[in-house]
């Protein structure tokens, strides 16, 4: 076979040819299941635009996106930072951006990485399948943008901006972690209906219903708690129960919540997702080379870029900045493949069910049914722990020294695997804060409860700031208690709403 091209310049025809060649390998040889692709060639400026609206082609306006844009632009102009060479959007069709100044090799790399790697991950992984609706997201964002700009016209930019600020502060607490969400498209269809219902509901809300019955205060001890169970989704609770919000404010909270929910799977599958895309660009482009469709020069450029992406600096390096998700993810998928194809005795002991079986179904299963946390605890092999020379450090503030808890030896493998998995558990990375109680009989104050994990306290400054936002949304006093494992309160914050700011 003759190579598709030899130079480094790309043309639309060449992109098309490469895409066909890659698609042929991905779909026909490796049976990757993908959404249709939409490859969009854009300029560097447009890439910066895409960056600052969290990669989405449409989004509502907010100053924080402007801030992001300003800082991206600054560092790009100073040459401190190259732009990421790809952005891909979990939508149907799957949109991948190709930057105009990339060479042909890089375009091919991006196509393999984004349009076939990420794309098939979005389509296959259970988190994305259950939590996001790829076909509806763009439409929903268009709706959100229009709705928010109408609100800006009607209620003023400042009012909307303040509300969005508050919602953004709670964005990470606007997702359902355990309950399965409704599909977005359905949600959109019913948005109007829901809003009206929700508003009506607030009219008969417990908060209000209890006001005239003060004389029955003696029954307070037996009064039902509100909410009956602690609520993990703060934004949802506020949207449905905050007494003073207008309907449009509830709708905006809902929008932020939906967007947060849409991005939630991405935050839980960093290693898996990037690793999967990297594994596939590596596999697909190598296959292109084997078929003689690309030149040696192409491969040199590709490998140079690939090795940069999967480089893991050791902890002693000055530029060490945690574990590189590309490196870890890529190594894990490669390792799973190796265990399937050429298992050692150790692998047979650790992974009896996959050692020596065909690698493709095993990999597919691993991609589909896990998130970072469970993926690592399932598949991190002793060989990989040795290769990375992983070690675990225990940092206890009651101890004046750090302790090396485990290293890459027989005694340490399981410990390291468990700790690394824990490190990717969003539930323990982020403080666990839930709606605890609303004082129905008294001042209607809202109490949030932080259940401490490993005695880790909240960062006080930012917690106080976020609480201001909560009280702006809630409209009454807000308290936050940090509760130890033994149930004793160790930190408390409180915040009164800024009455002057209320209309």
């Amino acid at each position, binding site marked *: 076979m003759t190579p598709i091209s030899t130079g480094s310049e790309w043309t639309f025809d060449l992109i098309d040819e490469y895409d066909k060649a890659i698609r042929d390998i991905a779909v026909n040889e490796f049976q990757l299941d993908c959404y249709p692709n939409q490859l969009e*060639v854009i300029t560097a400026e*447009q890439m910066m635009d895409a960056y600052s*609206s969290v990669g989405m082609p449409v989004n509502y306006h907010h100053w924080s*996106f402007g801030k992001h844009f300003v800082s991206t632009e600054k560092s790009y102009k100073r040459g401190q930072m190259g732009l990421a060479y790809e952005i891909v959007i979990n939508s149907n069709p799957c949109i991948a951006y190709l930057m105009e100044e990339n060479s042909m090799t890089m375009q091919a790399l991006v196509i393999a990485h984004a349009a076939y790697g990420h794309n098939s991950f979005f389509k296959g992984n259970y988190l994305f399948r259950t939590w996001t609706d790829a076909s509806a997201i763009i439409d929903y964002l268009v709706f959100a943008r229009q709705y928010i700009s109408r609100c800006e016209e009607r209620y003023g930019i400042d009012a909307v901006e303040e509300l969005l600020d508050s919602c953004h502060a709670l964005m*990470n607490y606007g997702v359902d972690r355990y309950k399965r969400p409704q599909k977005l498209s359905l949600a959109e269809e019913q948005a109007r209906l829901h809003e009206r219902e929700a508003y009506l509901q607030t009219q008969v809300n417990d908060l209000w219903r209890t006001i005239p019955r003060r004389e029955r205060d003696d029954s307070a001890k037996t009064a039902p708690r509100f909410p009956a169970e602690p609520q993990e989704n703060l934004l949802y609770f506020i949207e449905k129960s905050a007494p003073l919000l207008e309907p449009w404010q509830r709708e905006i909270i809902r929008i932020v919540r939906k967007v947060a929910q849409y991005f939630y799977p991405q935050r839980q599958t960093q290693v898996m997702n990037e690793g999967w895309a990297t594994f596939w660009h590596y596999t697909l482009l190598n296959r292109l080379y084997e078929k003689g469709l690309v030149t040696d020069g192409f491969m040199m450029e590709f490998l140079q870029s690939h090795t940069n992406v999967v480089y893991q600096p050791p*902890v002693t390096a000055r530029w060490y900045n945690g574990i590189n998700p590309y490196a870890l993810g890529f190594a894990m998928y490669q390792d799973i493949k190796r265990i399937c194809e050429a298992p050692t005795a150790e692998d047979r002991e650790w992974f009896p069910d996959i050692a020596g079986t065909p690698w493709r179904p095993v990999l597919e299963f691993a991609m589909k049914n896990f998130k970072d946390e469970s993926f690592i605890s399932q598949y991190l092999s002793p060989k990989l722990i040795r290769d990375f020379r992983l070690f675990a450090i225990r940092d206890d503030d009651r101890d004046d020294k750090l302790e*090396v808890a485990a290293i890459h030896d027989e005694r340490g493998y399981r410990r390291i695997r468990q700790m690394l998995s824990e490190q990717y558990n969003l539930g323990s990375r982020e403080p666990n804060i839930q709606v605890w109680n609303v004082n129905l009989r008294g001042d209607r104050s809202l109490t949030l409860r932080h259940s401490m994990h490993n005695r880790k306290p909240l960062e006080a400054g930012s917690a106080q700031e976020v609480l201001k936002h909560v009280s702006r949304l809630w409209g009454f006093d807000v308290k936050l208690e940090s509760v130890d494992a033994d149930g004793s309160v160790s930190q408390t914050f409180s915040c009164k709403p800024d009455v002057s700011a209320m209309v």
Partner: protein
Amino acid sequence: MSHIIDRRLNGKNKSAVNRERFLRRFKAQIKEAVGKAIKGRSITDIESGENVSIPVKDISEPSFHHGRGGVGEHVHPGNEEFVQGDRIKRPQGGGGGGGGGKASNEGEGEDDFAFQLSREEFMNVFFEDLALPNLVKTQLMGIEEMKPVRAGYTNDGTPANISIVRSLRGALARRVAMAAPTLTRLREAEEDLDTLLESDDDNGVEVRERRRQIHALREKINHIPFIDPFDLRYNNRVKQPKPTSKAVMFCLMDVSGSMDEGKKDMAKRFFILLYLFLQRNYEKIEVVFIRHHTSAVEVNEQDFFHSRESGGTVVSSALNLMADIVKKRYANSEWNIYAAQASDGDNWDSDSANCGKILQEKILPWCQYYAYIEITEGEPQNLWYEYLRVAGQHKHFAMQKIRSPADIYPVFRELFKRQPATR
């Protein structure tokens, strides 16, 4: 099947709205930064962007996260020497080997968030206080005024721009070129005919044939169009930045003890505004700084704004010095002379009448515009009344009492109003 779409022609300024929102949100901080920049800059260098920095803590978006403390367990790659159970000293500053928690939480907030304001954004902030009418803003912000200049000829344009001489010359050349081969053959045919006619033989058929040929060739030549759209040439005009004349701007300021930093700052804005106006209208501008207390000196910009003197005030000294400089350096008619004077209104009593006289006799006759601002909260003094008298007699003398930057503009109202007429 993949779709490949070229989006490069779509607008690139999708983020413009968000950027604008960002600037709007931090207006107070940006204004402060611009104010500082104006203080620090030369008035001839007012029109570039500016680096603005805002404390990071002002623009951070808060979220709940863990602070230091508690038990943290972390896995790191690249173990070199540790074995299980080793106890190591906690590294200082949270970096490196394995600090607990998220080390960055405490350390943030020190660096400023710095970014660049574009020229337009900078000027917008600058103009904000000055309460300029919008028309004036666009005049000052706009690109330089253009005037069309001949630049050869082009192949297309509007009929009004057709260059007749050029087009006809082209047409002639084309006709000559297109006719040339036919003409040669015509000449040959005519010569043939002549020889045939002279030979006396009776070869009427051939003669007729030649005649027919000659006729056809003539017809062919006649069919070459006299003028063809292809010949048309149009005058080409390109726009060049217009004004090419020169202006000198005199900045006169009282630097006696009573002019404090705030007042000088206000005066600076006043000078900048005049400078911007001149910059739009003149190619070359010189700025002369004259400061005075009891006597006047010409100084550079640095000394003009930043050194402080005390003592009394004799305004006429500055006017005299200006008149001298005009006579010495700018007497030439190609200089347009503008003057801007700032003072807090103090003057030595018997000097004011003198000032009026110098102005009327030695300065105003040469000046395009003379603007005077008095930065004061108090009652006007005799200098003000003297100037009022002068203003009554001269249209191009303007004066204004100033308390805030918004009061500056009216002193230039006449000047800016006249501008369209001078175009």
